[in-house]
């Protein structure tokens, strides 16, 4: 039996009755930025559900375009973050710790959070047994602890690939938040078999992959999109705290012709008073401690489809 509805959350309207979120220091928006720091293998074993590359091996352009992020784009992005006083919450293919430890050191040294985006962006969760999936999650827990001393708290599935068990296992193994659900502008409880799991808004709309590779927008238009998203969430956040995330990929945002428009948008946001410049973990912890129970209580059971 396959799912018709994944059943991961109840229905909670975005109306006046929704429990009110308060962020630290009266902030209206919890703002976080999630650079996806990724390693794509040039010739990985094949998953029957999805091939790694659009072109026959070796996909020189596909592979090298992504490699650009680690060689050049990341470093340019890092400087822009530093200039704006922003920390990243890194969605990490954990094998990066072995391949390019210099990047991990820079992130850890700045107090950035590192959370898991699987082992490689070319190893998909589709078709795994429970034991295999647990092995992948445990690998992430161990690798991030070994290289940064951090406890792994967050999950964004590698290349957004799943089984029906993924979120249950992530919660069972002690992680506290996921970025894979796109149903809300505020955090929301995720219903899992065990553990406590919250969905933190991550946004495909703000994601540079969607902006640049799907919607094909120009860099300046991307900057405008980010500013508009923020301005509206800031306005709404006066009533109840909102979350804004910008998911990034150094191989996209880190191009010279894209950096200035992005940095302008980042500065627009970080220049506001009532913004909490947070990490994914901090938002999850605050929500779980202060609002999770109210949200669960206020939610409506979803009715049956005819």
């Amino acid at each position, binding site marked *: 039996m396959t799912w018709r509805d994944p059943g991961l959350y109840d229905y909670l309207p975005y109306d006046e009755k929704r429990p009110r979120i308060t962020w630290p220091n009266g902030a209206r928006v919890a703002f976080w930025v999630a650079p996806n720091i990724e390693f794509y293998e040039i010739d990985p074993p094949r998953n029957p559900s999805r091939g790694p590359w659009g072109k026959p*091996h070796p996909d*020189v352009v596909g592979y090298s375009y992504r490699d650009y992020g680690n060689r050049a784009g990341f470093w*340019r992005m890092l400087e822009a973050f530093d200039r704006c006083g922003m920390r990243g919450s890194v969605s990490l293919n954990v094998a990066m710790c072995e391949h390019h*430890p210099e990047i991990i050191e820079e992130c850890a040294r700045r107090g950035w959070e590192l959370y898991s985006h699987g082992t490689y962006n070319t190893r998909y969760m589709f078709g795994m047994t429970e034991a295999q999936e647990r092995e992948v999650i445990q690998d992430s827990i161990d690798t991030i602890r070994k290289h940064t001393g951090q406890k792994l708290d967050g999950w964004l599935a590698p290349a957004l690939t799943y089984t029906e068990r993924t979120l249950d296992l992530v919660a069972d193994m002690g992680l506290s938040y996921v970025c894979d659900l796109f149903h809300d502008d505020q955090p929301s409880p995720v219903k899992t078999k065990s553990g406590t799991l919250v969905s933190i808004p991550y946004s495909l709309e703000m994601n540079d992959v969607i902006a640049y590779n799907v919607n094909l927008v120009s860099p*300046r238009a991307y900057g405008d999109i980010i500013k508009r998203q923020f301005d509206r969430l800031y306005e709404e956040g006066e009533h109840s705290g909102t979350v804004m995330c910008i998911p990034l990929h150094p191989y996209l945002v880190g191009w*010279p*012709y894209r950096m200035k428009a992005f940095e302008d948008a980042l500065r627009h946001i970080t220049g506001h008073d009532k913004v909490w410049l947070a990490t994914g973990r901090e938002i999850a912890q605050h929500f779980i401690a202060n609002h999770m129970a109210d949200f669960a209580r206020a939610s409506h059971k979803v009715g049956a489809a005819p």
Partner: protein
Amino acid sequence: MTGMPPEYLQYRARKYGMDHDRYDWSILPRRKKVEWPGGARVALWVMPALEWFPIDMKGKPFKPPGAMQTSYPDLRHYTLRDYGNRVGIWRMMRSFDRMGIRVTAAMNAAVATRYPALLEACVARGWEIVANGQDMDHLHYEGLPVEDERRQVATTLEVFRRVPGLKVRGWLSPAKSQSKATLDIVAEAGIEYCCDWVNDDMPYAMRTAHGPLVAMPHPIDIDDHTILVQNHHSDDEFREQLCDQFDCLYDEAATQGGRVMAISLHPWITGQPYRIGALEKALQHMVSRKGVWSATGSEIMDAWKAQQ
């Protein structure tokens, strides 16, 4: 449920550096600073592609950007691509001449043999020619027998090498598509640099079975096909993106050493009367700055190599 085979959770190349041997892992801002001749901050590398798309193209193993699109015979796209070689490039040539820009043309061998007058005009201006394969329907890819690929490279290079005084040192594969052997084959044939890989803003060293080869930073983003045709941006947005790319590199060069501003162009796109002005304005923005070195691919590579 059986799950994935055990090797799906084994990671043979999980170690420091890359997962292949073609080049080493290297961090752009941590390299030794490069100094361009005359203390220039940015080497400006302008690279129009002169391509021929046969009207009966097979598109094997995939259709390259600019390929025929309708059922055979696609006169519409065939002739519009040809417009670039017949009109567009000549219009661009006048612009480049006026601004004193050194140019590197990526040329299919078929363009050289079909339109010798065009090749002559490029050579007469001191433009460099980068071999861009036989034509746009002779892709290099894994599965093409190595002997066939070797023949494609030899056929291409022969066409250029019989031109007196013309030395071809650079290679651009049609659609940047390679087999596992392409770099070895072109290095064996005497090619010194390749423009297919898009992972860097500067030249870097690659390994082949026949000695070292330089990867030159030839982009797919700073490219009129990507911006104007694929992304449907306006001509003004094209100009803005070229200028923004340049400004970032120019600023970066103040602290990180010389940079390369590479522009990939297609005369059937940018050589249109309504578009050429956007390119001219962008180039004017660049050459009006101090410390911009308009150079060919070989000149940039030689200056870089001398400092490694």
